[in-house]
């Protein structure tokens, strides 16, 4: 936008008057004084020929700096004072005919002048508002830009962290697999489960995830989720790190249940229960989770513990700062978590 050049004096005068907006009484008093001063100058220095002339700049000044109403008041006051200074007490109508006409003309011209001056003042106010709004918008834009840069940086950090976790999952999968084909298959399923858990976290800007949503995301590919999994427990929101590890654990447990456990036949099922229990210290409630397989084939503890149980137990123990237990009981595998709730719950508890 191009700026028209302003007269610096008028600009300064308007800015000055806008900074010092007077309440009505002092404003009218100031206008009265200015007009009275003009009247005094007129009596002392100027002939009777054109007594209204000296009031013109004063009225203009008042219109510019004090607005329309005060301007009209100044016009009327000026007309009266001008008339008083030229009046002859003896005359029948106080002023002569031409003087009356001149007074009326003065009021019309001076009032027009006030209207133009007051409009100029109002335009100036609007222009200042627009400038202020534009500056505010620019400031907001700069702030948004800074926020988006921060967010970008944070996303980069998160991406690197996720890549490093994926690297760990890949290394451990390869390490525990007898051959590449097995590794490839296991990895595909693990990363898919990881991806679904990431969806749950993305829905909360990567802050927290509810355990129900995590369990459903991890178990989603199993058609039997409605019939053979029984999930029960309160809504608990976990931090993102804990949420990912928990989703991976659910995935591993389900995969093992399908391969060797209760879901490897047509009738077995999985009870997944969790609760918040009062701990030894009432101020520190505990998170207790049980994955219990029932109705499966006879349980045989595996000779070799693979990625699943290693990563599940070690990582969950660390993320939850609590105990984990995997036991191969006669009626089915049982996996338990017993940990302080505070260590894993999202801090805002949302």
């Amino acid at each position, binding site marked *: 936008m191009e700026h028209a050049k302003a007269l610096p004096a008028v600009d300064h005068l308007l800015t000055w008057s806008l900074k010092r907006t007077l309440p009505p009484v002092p404003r009218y008093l100031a206008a009265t004084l200015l007009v009275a001063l003009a009247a005094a100058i007129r009596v002392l220095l100027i002939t009777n020929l054109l007594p209204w002339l000296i009031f013109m700049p004063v009225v203009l000044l008042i219109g510019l700096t004090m607005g329309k109403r005060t301007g009209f008041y100044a016009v009327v006051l000026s007309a009266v004072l001008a008339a008083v200074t030229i009046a002859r007490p003896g005359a029948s109508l106080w002023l002569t005919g031409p003087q009356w006409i001149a007074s009326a003309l003065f009021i019309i011209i001076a009032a027009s002048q006030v209207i133009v001056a007051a409009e100029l003042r109002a335009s100036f106010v609007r222009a200042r508002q627009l400038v202020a709004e534009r500056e505010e918008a620019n400031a907001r834009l700069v702030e948004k830009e800074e926020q988006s840069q921060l967010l970008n*940086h944070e996303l*980069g*950090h998160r*991406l*690197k*962290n996720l*890549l*490093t*976790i994926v*690297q*760990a*999952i890949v*290394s*451990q999968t390869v*390490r525990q697999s007898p051959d590449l084909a097995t590794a490839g298959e296991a990895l595909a399923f693990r990363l898919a489960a990881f991806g679904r858990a990431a969806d749950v976290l993305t829905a909360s800007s990567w802050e927290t995830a509810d355990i129900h949503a995590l369990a459903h995301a991890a178990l989603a590919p199993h058609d039997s989720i409605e019939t053979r999994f029984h999930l029960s427990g309160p809504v608990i929101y976990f931090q993102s*790190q804990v949420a*990912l*590890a928990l989703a*991976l654990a659910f995935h591993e447990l389900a995969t093992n249940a399908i391969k060797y456990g209760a879901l490897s036949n047509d009738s077995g099922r999985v009870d997944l229960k969790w609760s918040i229990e009062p701990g030894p210290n009432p101020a520190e409630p505990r998170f207790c989770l049980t994955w219990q397989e029932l109705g499966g084939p006879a349980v045989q503890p595996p000779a070799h513990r693979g990625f699943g149980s*290693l*990563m599940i137990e*070690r*990582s969950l123990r*660390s*993320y939850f700062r609590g105990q984990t237990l995997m036991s191969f009981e006669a009626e089915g595998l049982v996996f338990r978590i017993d940990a302080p709730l505070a260590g894993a719950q999202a801090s805002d508890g949302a």
Partner: protein
Amino acid sequence: MTDDMAAIERSILVVDDEALIRINLAVFFEDEGFQVFEAGDADEAIGILDANPSIQVVLTDVQMPGSMDGVKLAHYVRNRFPPTLLVVASGAVKLTAADLPAHTMFLAKPFDPRFVLSEIDRLSA
């Protein structure tokens, strides 16, 4: 085996709050014959170092919860246990020699643990 004696003496402390990452590194160095210690934050790491001053290598993440981040931990270890080999890794910040204590290796995450191993071999040779 002739290198058993050397292998037994090698020890590393892995410090990372992300357990999946830390366990993977721990397993890698265990497979390579290291005695591995793990810590989830700097305070835990300092406790382990105080109890096991013979630890030769400290491999730490930078962003961690707790009173110290990985950079502060590295400076602390350099002052308190000067001969320790220090490796600092981060996915968020690029650190230069000026940020780190002397003789400290910086790695951008994700990194190849085999590279860390070869550097440890080279520097401790």
